[in-house]
């Protein structure tokens, strides 16, 4: 079977795991079979919350990407074999060919790909899908297509040039025939194959585009189709008869049905699954993590331990953010990097299961990642070193403000920080904020907070979205929340932007990362891990290396 089960609750250091680009041969179906997989049966997925959006152009979150693989197909997608991801062509025959220094990208669609009603998938439908990302109401999804295709700095500027299907055809995408799709970008773009794997790159049939209705029940191209979707209640899928395995090198169609139920708390679901009560034995959770309450129990009982599926949460990194415009003195930021008590902080989060200690800005899952540690300190922090740096500060700092999303675990985490900062002579003022408006309160406007913990993630596992989208001084507060401002870095970023070759670009960004880190703009804390549970009768469960949750498209009923 693919993936690893949770016999490793406390992962040491995971090897760098990057998604290589696959060849055209890798892109031909069927997907590599899973040992021991069987056909038939129903798989239950019990999640605490339902899906707000299923419209492919509105989906913008790891788990929904992951689950939507069941019914949605994109130009490219990650093939995962033994936990290793490879980007391959999905609807397209390969990951795309670029010309004109990265300004033109061409994709050809495979033969035999069809919608759930049997009609073939065409290049125009892919184009229509991408055109929708310009339309009002699609602000929720990623903004790369509008920005790249119009050469605009942001989506607002892009939609002024083209406002979606209502403005007619978008000239930047050409569909010479039903099978070919050609993108023309004003500036060179290196990451198109990765963007082509995003849900936004799914085809949409204009005749079936019912607006709000499509958000609830999109038309399937994948191995399963949606039979019923009652929002926040349940979602039922069954086999799509028009999906052909030989066209798909990624997905499987083992189970007969998928039944999603929403609303039950993770603790309940996890216990049901671990105890095999009710539908527990044939259930998995994809949106909920194993609750800390059950950590010890799953460790004690080997039968339960094997039901825990763990892995790194995609390319996420958990950092202590420092607002550089408020904590302007790099010496103070360095002091914070030294005193940060990673060990104690992780202890209140449940220990090693929460993740590995991080020292780098980007995740080991990113292509070309290099390990470095610019402020080496024991995991419990180095107060002496911190005091040294504080002494070097131009103005002594005695008080800092730490904002966090108000909840019990975060409350305790705040106390850990209060303790550590206190030891270094800094009074930490703690500001619990309403979780619903946390982002808004911390990022927008002149928020009066110096520190907060946050998770950054890249949209795909190359370094090209991390620094350019977060550390350029011209970016707005929403992207560059810490107000990092280093003219040298700005300049370098502008240079790198123009590189069309993916490899070169990635290497340059990786090198730039350490330059940025010298300023200690943030303190890397964890490469977070996730643990989820699967029922006794569920096979093929692993944490998707890119999307960071159990991927439904690989599951099968081990008992059927």
């Amino acid at each position, binding site marked *: 079977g693919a993936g690893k089960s949770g016999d490793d609750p406390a992962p040491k250091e995971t090897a760098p795991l990057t998604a290589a680009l696959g060849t055209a041969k890798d892109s031909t179906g069927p997907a590599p079979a899973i040992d021991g997989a069987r056909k038939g049966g129903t798989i239950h997925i019990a999640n605490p919350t*339902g899906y*707000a*959006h299923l419209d492919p152009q509105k989906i*913008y979150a790891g788990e929904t990407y992951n689950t939507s693989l069941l019914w949605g197909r994109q130009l490219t997608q990650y093939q995962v074999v033994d936990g290793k991801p490879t980007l391959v062509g999905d609807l397209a025959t390969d990951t795309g060919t670029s010309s004109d220094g990265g300004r033109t990208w061409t994709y050809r669609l495979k033969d035999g790909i069809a919608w759930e009603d049997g009609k073939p998938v065409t290049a125009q439908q892919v184009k229509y899908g991408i055109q929708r990302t310009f*339309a*009002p*109401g*699609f*602000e*929720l999804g990623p*903004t790369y297509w509008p920005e790249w295709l119009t050469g605009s700095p*942001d*989506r*607002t500027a892009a939609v002024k040039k083209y406002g979606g299907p209502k403005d007619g055809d978008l000239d930047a995408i050409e569909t010479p025939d039903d099978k070919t799709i050609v993108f023309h970008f004003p500036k060179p773009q290196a990451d198109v194959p990765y963007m082509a794997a995003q849900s936004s790159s799914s085809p949409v049939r204009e005749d079936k585009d019912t*607006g*709000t209705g499509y*958000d*609830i029940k999109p038309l399937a191209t994948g191995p399963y189709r949606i039979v019923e979707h*009652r*929002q*926040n*209640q349940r979602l039922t899928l069954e086999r799509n008869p028009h999906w052909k395995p030989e066209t798909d090198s990624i997905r499987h169609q083992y189970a007969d049905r998928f039944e999603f139920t*929403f*609303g*039950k*708390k993770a*603790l*309940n*679901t996890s*216990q*049901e699954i*671990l*105890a095999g*009560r*009710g539908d527990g034995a044939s259930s998995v959770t994809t949106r909920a993590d194993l609750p800390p*309450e059950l950590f010890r129990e799953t460790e004690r009982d080997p039968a339960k331990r094997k039901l825990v599926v763990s892995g790194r949460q995609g390319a996420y990194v958990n950092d202590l953010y420092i607002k550089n415009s408020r904590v302007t003195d790099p010496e103070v930021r360095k002091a914070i990097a030294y005193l940060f008590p990673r060990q104690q902080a992780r202890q209140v989060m449940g220990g090693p299961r929460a993740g590995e200690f991080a020292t780098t800005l980007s995740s080991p899952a990113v292509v070309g990642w290099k390990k470095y540690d610019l402020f080496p300190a024991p995991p419990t922090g180095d107060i002496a070193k911190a005091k040294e740096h504080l002494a070097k500060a131009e103005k002594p700092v005695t008080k800092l403000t730490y904002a966090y999303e108000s909840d019990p675990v975060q409350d305790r985490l705040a106390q850990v920080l209060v303790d550590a900062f206190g030891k270094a002579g800094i009074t930490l003022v703690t500001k619990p904020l*309403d*979780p*619903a*408006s946390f*982002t*808004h*309160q911390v990022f*927008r406007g002149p928020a009066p907070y110096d520190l907060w913990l946050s998770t950054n993630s890249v949209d795909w596992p190359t370094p090209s979205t991390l620094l350019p989208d977060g550390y350029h001084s011209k970016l*707005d507060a*929403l992207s560059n929340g810490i107000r990092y401002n280093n003219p040298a870095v700005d300049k370098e970023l502008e240079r790198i932007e123009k590189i069309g070759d993916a490899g070169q670009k990635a290497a340059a960004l990786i090198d730039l990362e350490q330059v940025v880190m010298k300023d200690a703009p943030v303190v890397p804390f964890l490469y977070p891990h996730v643990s989820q549970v699967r029922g006794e009768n569920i096979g093929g469960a692993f944490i998707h290396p890119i999307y960071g949750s159990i991927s439904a498209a690989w599951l099968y009923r081990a008992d059927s």
Partner: protein
Amino acid sequence: MLSYVLRRTLQAAAVLLAITAAAFGLFYAAPSDPALIACGPKCDTAQVEAVRHSMGLDQPLVAQYVDYLGGLVTGRTINDVDGTPIECGAPCLGYSYTLHQPVTEAIADHLPVTLSLAVGALAVIVVLGVGTGLVSALRRGSRTDRMLSAFTLIGASVQIYFLGYALQYLLVYSTDLFPLPGYVPLADDPGGWAAGLLLPWLVLGFVNAAVFARLSRAQLLEVMHEGYVRTARGKGLSARRAHLKYTARGAAPPLAQLLGLEAGALFGGAFITETVFGLGGVGKLAVDAVVGNDLPTVVGTVLLAALCVVVFVAVADLVVAWLDPRVRLA
């Protein structure tokens, strides 16, 4: 009676107006912005403003409130975040941008769970609470009295979280003694319905029974010494039957009142119990909405809860007047 119903209806309407207005106002004063949340973290100012406009949040608070009330009576058309119109039939409680569902529909989805939970829990509360209160009062000062007091007080001092999870762990997941908590519609499978709700009923009932047990004990002790109870025994009624028929009747009015309050609260949703047992009821819907700043759902659930309270309090008053002929309906 007729004028009573009329007066109560008017009062209820006034209460509901006040409550919805208060909920509206409170959320307006809150620092978080529903438009931002609906739009998503990556929205820029212009987009947020567009969303705000299509949600109608750029209008004055009073106008929004009036719109809302109008929709309640006649239904209305609401814009989705992207401006697509959504038909919302009367009684329209608005459209939730978080759930992507009309609030009326969301509540209808969650209501059966809450109703089932409340009905059973009330039964347990009454049987357990009044039953132990009765036995305690009859055996005042005895060991039985003390044991029952202690038993119900455990209920009062224990947390539903704790009790719910501990019992599920011990009785469901480790030993199979109890059926798995969950909700099956009554119409589909009455047996499964009762089985799935058994543990939640017991826990909710046990935790809330103490008030009833204590109050009924105290009330019964108060009434037990009335002359008419002695008369009843003088007629030849056994002490037990005399207490059941006469003492209980005399002690009933405050209990009926409390039961009305409890019913109002339970039918409005029992958030913690619903969460602990993984039941998706109105209470959970409400708190999720509050936490997620989902204004229409908040107001909708508040309205429902308020309606329940108002109705049950009125019914309780009616019952009290019926129980005690000396009391006039006010």
